[in-house]
């Protein structure tokens, strides 16, 4: 199955001026690699304001002027340039923005959904199509003449979704589609996005709400301090032990149903020389302080951690060898997990039990969900 979207080694940074007009570089996304297939939903999960929206902006070619981008983005196997981005955005790739603020406050919603038209003929066609899509999502004709500020929360969400679907795109990017919505609306949104997948569309879901990611996505990419540190299947998020990176585990452990184990510590704001999770990591190695791990394939998943580096000699360090033993066996277990679940889980549990007890000695508890961070507006 050909990949719909491939993002390889994408880095985004900004130049900023702070007080006294000192120049300041700000790296927001580092070495991001990710792919999405047809009929697949991939979530990028990271704390709010960590700059993950810029991934969406980068794919659509709408980053601000003071940004520097490296890496490549491929759509249907073709590398995207600014020109091709401008050609396909709004047609083959559509954005579902996070709030009604993304609609022109002085334009009626139907008019905005229709958008720019070359001539009256095109306008008429698009108007019919707009009516169709709006009706499909239960927006009756009275909604057409409303201004964005007149929409209720649920209506606004449907308008945004319909607007994105008007041109029948192959890939949808949902950027924080559920902020401040009530439980029912969140459920509806999740269902709507799942339906898109049923219709063969690929969806990139950018969110800071782990619940939404878990209920919606097929795979989840964990975004930490500008890095994707792990990409794993959603099934593996049921139990933190199935995950690879210590941060992902801490994240899942922090869920209420898993006992709400919060991990302390903050994501580094400044670019660090080594692994961004070094300060908080329970299984860190000496080399992690000054060397950056690469995002490597590990089974079906991808992981950015030296503990999974094949090249590490087994006997290089006592701790390491012990750790890597555990990890390997765990890995084997999870491999089997797919086939016959219940039996193996016990052994896996045992294995991980060791790991956890070891960890919990210096449990680095982390405020994960709402860390105030480098804001991506700048």
């Amino acid at each position, binding site marked *: 199955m050909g990949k719909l979207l491939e993002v390889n080694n994408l880095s985004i940074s900004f130049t900023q*001026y702070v*007080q*006294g*007009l000192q*120049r300041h570089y700000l790296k927001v996304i580092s070495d991001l690699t990710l792919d999405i297939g047809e009929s697949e939903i991939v979530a990028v999960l990271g704390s709010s304001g960590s700059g993950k929206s810029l991934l969406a902006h980068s794919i659509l070619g709408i980053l601000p002027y*003071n940004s520097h981008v490296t890496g490549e983005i491929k759509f249907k196997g073709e590398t995207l340039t600014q020109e091709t981005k401008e050609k396909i955005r709004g047609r083959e790739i559509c954005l579902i923005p996070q709030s009604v603020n993304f609609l022109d406050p002085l334009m009626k919603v139907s008019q905005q959904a229709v958008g720019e038209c070359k001539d009256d003929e095109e306008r008429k066609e698009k108007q019919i199509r707009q009516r169709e899509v709006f009706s499909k999502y239960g927006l009756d004709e009275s909604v057409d003449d409303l201004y964005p500020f007149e929409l209720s929360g649920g209506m606004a969400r449907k308008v945004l979704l319909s607007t994105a679907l008007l041109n029948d795109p192959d890939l949808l990017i949902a950027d924080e589609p559920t902020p401040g919505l009530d439980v029912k609306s969140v459920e509806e949104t999740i269902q709507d996005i799942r339906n898109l997948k049923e219709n063969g569309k690929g969806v990139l879901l950018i969110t800071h709400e782990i619940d939404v990611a878990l209920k919606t996505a097929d795979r989840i990419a964990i975004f930490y301090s500008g890095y994707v540190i792990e990409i794993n299947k959603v099934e593996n998020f049921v139990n933190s032990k199935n995950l690879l990176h210590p941060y992902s585990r801490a994240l899942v452990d922090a869920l209420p149903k898993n006992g709400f184990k919060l991990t302390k510590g903050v994501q580094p704001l400044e670019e660090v020389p080594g692994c961004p999770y070094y300060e908080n990591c329970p299984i860190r190695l000496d080399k992690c302080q000054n060397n950056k791990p690469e995002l490597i394939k590990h089974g079906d998943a991808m992981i950015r951690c030296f503990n999974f580096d094949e090249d590490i000699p087994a006997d290089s360090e006592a701790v390491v060898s012990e750790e890597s033993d555990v990890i390997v066996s765990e890995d084997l277990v999870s491999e089997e997990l797919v086939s016959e679940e219940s039996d193996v889980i016990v052994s896996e549990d045992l294995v991980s039990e060791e790991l956890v007890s070891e960890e919990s000695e210096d449990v680095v508890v982390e405020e994960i969900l709402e860390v105030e961070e480098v804001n991506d507006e700048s």
Partner: protein
Amino acid sequence: MSEAPGYNKGLFSSMNLRQKTLLTIGLTGLILLAIFISGWMINANLPTDFSIKMQAPSLAHPFGTDWMGRDMFIRTIKGLSLSIVIGIGASIISSIIATILAFVASVNKWFDEFVSWLIDLFASIPHILLIMMISIALGKGAFGVIMAVAFSHWVNLTRVLRSEVLQINTSEYVALSNRLGRSKLWIAKEHILPLVLSQIFVGTLLVFPHAIMHEASVTFLGFGLSPHEPAIGIILSESMSYLAMGAWWLAFFPGLALLIVVLLFDIIGDNLKRLLDPGEANN
């Protein structure tokens, strides 16, 4: 807002924005100081020489000469330095008025209402007319003009300071000081004034260009400095009588020089503002 023209070019491209901004401020300040000092050293009674009257610009007299054979360049420099003095006087007085009113407004709701009303009142009369009226009331002359310009230019700075003071007043450490039983005056002096000082400073600088321009305008109309003062406004209104004879230099150069001085002050003010509030520079 706006930046100095020719900003990112050639020689300066290797410097960063901070250095450029500081350099711009330094250079413009230096030019203005030079104009001011040289104007100060020029004797007010310029030599008259009727044998060289009404000469077009030349190397000896770059701005030409007037109907009494006086060198227009020297007259212009003298006029500019007078403009700068009046500008300094007027902007400082208007900043003092603005500061006082901003603090008065922070006392309570009624005072605040009163200050807002005062702002409305002064904003409702055309500036030039107001300056004319005050200048007439104070018997024209330098004192009249300085007061007139000062009393018509405090409005903007007061608006800015008023909201700033209001914001600081609602902050937690002011609330704390209140609970500790500090007097309002103490809070104003210790907490608020230091914070708004830079704004007052920039505000004063930004009033400057307007002050100079308005002084020249009312003097031109005949409501400002008296005709025997060496002011730019006087020079320009004099020049009107000789325009038809084609003596363009009498009006062109002095006005251009005034424009440049105003522009220089504008540049200093804007650059300082950016240095203190980098929000604009990120654009």
